[in-house]
């Protein structure tokens, strides 16, 4: 998935693209604001992150112009966060509205949900690691011909870990990700979920897949 970032603050643009790349998105940044609309259309992104305070044209104008030619999803990023601004953005055809400074988990969740909404068909993702393959749309894990079905929380946890395979994910990060979908689980519940997930994986012959890093978190 390619995300175009239209943001005039250089540092912000850079950090945002580093951040999104870390989470597996392809990123293109637009820097020439005189031709920003043409460029945005030319690069043919799957999603546009659009700042409102831009030089030359403001974001609302850019949003309206892009909408004239394309239905690519647009998420407006702004430091103006009144209902009025939000309404205005939505009326101009933006798909979502995130206010600065963004909670990164919220931003990611919003991006994901907009992408999911727009590209339903392409989103039937499959993740695989060490022979274990995980079908996100069905919530099914497969290993050497055997299947298990996961609950919502287990799916979320496994998704996060497999997406970041090789990296240690802290317990707080996992909890935060679950909280973003309104599962306000506590420490104990997370432990229970992780153990259950492990048991289920062992049930289909997957051992030592989900590794505990004492004091740091988990990884696959």
């Amino acid at each position, binding site marked *: 998935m390619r995300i175009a970032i239209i943001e005039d*603050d250089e*540092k*912000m643009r850079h950090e945002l693209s580093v951040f999104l790349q870390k989470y597996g998105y392809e990123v293109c940044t637009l820097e020439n604001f005189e031709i920003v609309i043409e460029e945005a259309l030319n690069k043919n992104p799957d999603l546009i992150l659009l700042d409102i305070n831009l030089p030359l044209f403001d974001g609302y104008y850019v949003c309206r112009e892009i909408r004239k030619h394309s239905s690519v999803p647009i998420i407006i990023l702004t430091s103006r966060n*009144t209902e009025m601004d939000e*309404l205005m953005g939505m009326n101009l055809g933006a798909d979502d509205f995130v206010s600065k400074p963004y909670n*990164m988990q919220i931003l990611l969740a919003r991006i994901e949900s907009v992408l999911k909404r727009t590209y339903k068909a392409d989103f039937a993702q499959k993740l695989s690691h060490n022979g274990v393959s995980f079908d996100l749309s069905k919530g099914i894990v497969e290993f050497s011909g055997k299947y298990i079905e996961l609950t919502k929380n287990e799916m979320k946890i496994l998704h996060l870990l497999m997406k970041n395979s090789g990296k240690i994910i802290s317990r707080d990060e996992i909890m*935060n990700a679950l909280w973003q979908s309104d599962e306000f689980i*506590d*420490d104990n519940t997370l432990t229970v979920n992780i153990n259950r997930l492990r048991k289920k994986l062992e049930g289909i012959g997957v051992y030592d897949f989900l590794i505990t890093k004492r004091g740091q978190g988990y990884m696959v």
Partner: protein
Amino acid sequence: MSFVEYLKEKALYFFIGILCAVFVVILLIFTGSNLYAVAYSFTLIFIGIAVCVSVDYLKRKDFYKNLLFCMRAMDKLYLLSEMVSPPGFYEGNVLCEALKLSNKAMNDQIAFYKNSMEEYREYIESWVHEIKTPIASGMLIVENNQGNAIKSIGEELEKIDAFVEQALFYSRSSSVEKDYIIKEQSLRGLVLSAVRRNSKALIQNKVFVEVEDFDFTVHTDSKWIDFILNQIISNSIKYKSENSKIKFSAQKSGTNISLFIEDNGIGISQKDVGRVFEKGFTGENGRKFKKSTGIGLYLCKKLCDKLGLSISISSEENKWTQVEIVFPKGGTHLLS
């Protein structure tokens, strides 16, 4: 103004008039006038004075009566000059004129301050939006880098952001302009989004959240409510105790919907609980924690007042604190 009061006021004129009449009478008696003529003259002068006084009194009576009535009965006294019209006698006219001029001068003065306040508010508002960009970049940098120092800077950045947000809403709360939009909102949605927004702080501080199963729609501005809920949640985190927990529940009572936010934190002492909405009040907990500014709840109250909601706090020290926000159902309160 009663007649007696009027007479007291004009006593000197009256006295001189009578005195003159007496002198005339004495003069007439000494020059050997007919007693009838003397009595006639005295009566004539007396009647003359009495007529003058009565006419003058009647002219003033209505004007002063109206003025005094307005002064006592009016709610907004600065509109007094609108209620009196020039009565047709000199002092009254001058008084009216003076009232109107002074009123106008005061209005100009008020407009001047209103303008400068509005300008200041606009500046604060744009400043807040300016500062959000560097804060956002900072947070991104924190997110993209690792290390304890970076993490701790990130926590400080979040505090800065919370204070900036407070400044923004403070300036909004005292503005005369109405910069909120009241729409139908899902109460559950509002609560969930506030919890999500605070997820990091809640998880870090090991505060468990329970949102009871309720589903009501309320009429309010989502951004303002978000700010209010944020303040309440961050208070619960700040004043937490062991095994901390925040519970959200809602109830319909009559035509109102009440949202309850209850925590099991350190609570508020009985003598402080009534004063928590006062500006700058920090109380015992403030002295213990030093992080209190006495602004958060004051702002919540002020914003609630503006939105037409009522907010109240009850607590038992060392046990629990409960905040109740009442949303009047239906759109009737929007009219105010």
